[in-house]
């Protein structure tokens, strides 16, 4: 006989079995909920991507499918994800986390240029603290933005007249260890995410700028630590590196080139778990100067902005560093890596020889050249900087992370695939190519003759300019004069060039294009000429490419008498002639007499 509890038990089991068999499975069609579907398809930051070969920031995960919803990764699956979202195929491609450039300086279009080459997060090592705050916004959420997220040191920590003060931007400086706590607190109040310190040892083989002393360095690092921030140090030689690490630095933001790393420093860095951003690319541009030409400048298919091309052509020529020294830096990077010291990819863009975005793949190639394996190079630009700087939101593709994605060709075999990314997403929204406004066209012949006034024939006009706008000591005043060369009318400038700013200038600027940002296309011409007289001596004509602050300079001489100076444009090697924003006639920084005057007339291009 079957007892009552048995009947109840069997009956319940049966009911449960029926219940579970009735629950809908993925084979059942979704009900057509128009509200849900339309909001999802309308959201550009929701999609399914796959199949792709996934490198999640730490390791290759094999073939994967990703579901992105509202700018975040919602699901990572080995099997296809079927739902109402748009499907994007990635067959045969590699998917990486959006890259992190661990050493940049942010101004102008830096944050817009970076993601064009998959750099979706930048770690800024010194910028204007006022500009920083608004640019830091939004990085914890997933706003629809066509720019990289910014983490920044803000104002750096340096001595009076130390490195960092030479850019004409007035910044607070520090002199004694007693000021450290308040100084660091002020940086944090301004919004600094970490503290960057400039340090050069008193025993350094070559002195560049005044530096804070070792006691102040130690005090600043300690203050940063106590106030919960990372302290990273700019050094440029081994002795300074050793002292910085000894003082407790969490990281070094440059490598050094003058010597090969010694065991003492290696052991200390290892013991204190100090990371390093060797910034190979900018050092290569100071010494060897072949890397950019080899991989980027000779290619026509790369859509680089004028200022990017311009910057990549430059180098720190004034330092005269022997190319062989760059081998030291490669050696140091390799040996540090072999000792288990964390290596972070950082470019120092936009310094000469580097440009935002494109320079990170260039840096990664150099890291590979130094001896890091391909996977380690990828980590050095993703998970390693993220974990080293405590950034939760980037560098690792996991469920819940921001959908900062870089879809490239098969990067497993060849890092150069990074130069032509297939698709890039920031916060789940695809990055659109930057359309550079076309440079203005200029017709051959007269640019300006000042017959009746200071008005020019072509371009935006002429004006006086000096480093006084950057807190320098020079001056310049412009006036129109009736007596010109051959015809009536010319422009006169009375000025003085004095030391004060790092790159003193005083003279006349002429803007050939319809706007400063776009510049004018002078690539069809071969020479520029102008009539000039004034205080006898040597002067400079400086050409600026659109978006770049680094001029290309050529000299000419002036006498009391009118003469026509003709300068071939080939003299300005490295200028991006397709987008010239400005011509500057300036007295040279080392002029024997500060005071001068110039009269300028009949500017022509041919």
């Amino acid at each position, binding site marked *: 006989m079957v007892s009552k509890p048995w009947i109840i038990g069997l009956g319940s089991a049966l009911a449960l079995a029926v*219940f579970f068999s009735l629950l809908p499975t993925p084979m059942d069609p979704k009900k057509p*909920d128009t509200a849900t579907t339309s909001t999802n398809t309308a959201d550009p930051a929701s999609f399914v991507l796959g199949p792709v070969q996934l490198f999640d920031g730490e390791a290759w995960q094999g073939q994967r499918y990703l579901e992105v919803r509202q700018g975040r990764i919602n699901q990572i699956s080995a099997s296809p994800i079927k739902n109402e979202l748009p499907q994007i195929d990635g067959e045969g491609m590699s998917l990486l986390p959006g890259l992190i450039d661990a050493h940049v300086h942010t101004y102008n279009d830096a944050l817009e240029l970076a993601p064009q080459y998959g750099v979706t997060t930048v770690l800024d090592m010194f910028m204007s603290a006022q500009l920083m705050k608004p640019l830091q916004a939004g990085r914890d959420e997933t706003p629809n933005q066509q720019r990289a997220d910014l983490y920044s040191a803000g104002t750096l920590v340096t001595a009076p007249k130390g490195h960092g003060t030479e850019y004409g931007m007035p910044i607070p400086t520090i002199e004694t260890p007693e000021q450290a706590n308040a100084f660091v607190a002020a940086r944090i109040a301004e919004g600094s995410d970490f503290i960057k310190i400039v340090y050069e040892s008193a025993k350094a083989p070559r002195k560049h700028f005044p530096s804070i002393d070792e006691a102040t360095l130690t005090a600043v690092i300690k203050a940063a630590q106590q106030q919960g921030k990372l302290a990273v140090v700019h050094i440029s030689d081994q002795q300074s590196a050793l002292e910085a690490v000894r003082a407790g630095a969490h990281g070094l933001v440059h490598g050094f080139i003058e010597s090969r790393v010694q065991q003492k420093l290696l052991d200390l860095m290892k013991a204190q778990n100090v990371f390093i951003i060797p910034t190979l690319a900018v050092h290569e541009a100071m010494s060897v100067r072949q890397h950019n030409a080899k991989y980027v400048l000779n290619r026509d298919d790369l859509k680089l902005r004028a200022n990017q091309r311009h910057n990549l052509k430059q180098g720190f020529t004034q330092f005269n560093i022997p190319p062989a020294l760059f081998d030291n830096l490669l050696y140091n990077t390799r040996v540090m890596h072999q000792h288990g010291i964390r290596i972070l990819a950082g470019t120092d863009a936009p310094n000469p020889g580097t440009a935002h975005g494109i320079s990170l793949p260039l840096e990664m190639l150099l890291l590979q050249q130094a001896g890091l394996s391909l996977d380690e190079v990828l980590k050095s630009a993703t998970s390693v900087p993220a974990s080293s700087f405590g950034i939760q939101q980037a560098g690792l593709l996991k*469920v819940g992370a921001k959908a900062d994605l870089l879809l490239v060709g098969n990067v497993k075999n060849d890092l150069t695939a990074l130069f032509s990314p297939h698709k890039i997403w920031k916060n789940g929204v695809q990055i659109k190519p930057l359309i550079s406004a076309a440079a203005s066209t200029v017709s051959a012949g007269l640019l300006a003759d000042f017959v009746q006034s200071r008005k020019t024939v072509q371009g935006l006009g002429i004006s006086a300019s000096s480093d006084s706008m950057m807190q320098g000591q020079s001056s310049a005043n412009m006036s129109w004069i009736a007596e010109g060369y051959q015809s009536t009318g010319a422009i006169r400038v009375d000025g003085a060039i004095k030391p004060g700013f790092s790159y003193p200038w005083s003279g006349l600027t002429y803007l050939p294009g319809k706007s400063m940002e776009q510049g004018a296309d002078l690539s069809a011409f071969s020479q520029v000429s102008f009539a000039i007289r004034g205080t006898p001596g040597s002067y400079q004509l400086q050409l600026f490419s659109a978006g770049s602050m680094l001029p290309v300079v050529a000299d000419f001489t002036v006498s009391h008498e009118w003469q026509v100076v003709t300068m071939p444009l080939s003299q300005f090697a490295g200028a991006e002639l397709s987008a010239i924003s400005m011509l500057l006639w300036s007295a040279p920084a080392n002029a024997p007499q500060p005071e001068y005057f110039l009269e300028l007339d009949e500017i022509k291009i041919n």
Partner: protein
Amino acid sequence: MNTPNINMSGIDLPGIKTATLPWLSWPQTLKLLLMEAKSDLLTLWRSPGFVAPSLIFPVMFYLLFGVFLTKGGQSDYLLVTYCCFGVMGPALFNFGVNVATEKSQGWLTMKQIAPAPVSAYLFGKMVSSLLFALVIVLLLFVCAALFGDVRLYTSQWLGLAGLVLVGTLPFCLFGLWLGLTLSAKAAPAVVNLIYLPLAFLGGLWLPIHILPGFMQQFAQLLPSFHFGQLALSVIGRDLAQPWWQHLLALIVFTLLFAVLASRAFRQNRSV
């Protein structure tokens, strides 16, 4: 009179020795357990103050947050977490509040000195909590299928139900410990004060990854977080942390609460 069958040494649970009662035959043992379960269930059923909130709240919250407010975008994720939230309720309240009440009424002492093993009493509570948990899970599944448009493989539906039911064990023990330690007056308030924050901070109300970083760190300390993550692993929506870490954490919590409850139990008996 005492209950000689219960081994209260170490961390052994009252209840483990049930099957070897020397003076009861197998069918008798079964009948005793069924009786206990039935009477406890009847007690619960007759207290609408327990039935209504424990059934209605998870369903209401799921429909509100999981289906209507988020327009279904997270309905599968939140189904899992609200299942966890739902089954924690009967476990914590039936053990926490009801044991405290029954203790103050002398019922627990009665059970402890009665010839029937006290483990049967706890078993009854466990069964009734599980039955309530099951009903909650089934209700949530129906809502998810009908309103949330959730589609899972049958193995996932079954796995999820099984996992959240088994996963109530640490919370039953947690509740038992609270019930044995708290006074009848304090228990409802205290259990609520523990239950709701535990659910929220463990990421059961809102997805854990949208909480601020420090809260995500803190969640690692909560059994509810590991419970939720383990359950989410059934549908592949857990965080990157490996699943066995969550399992390990839950086992540690189970052992911890078992020790605490068995201590409290001994103290109560010696009063």
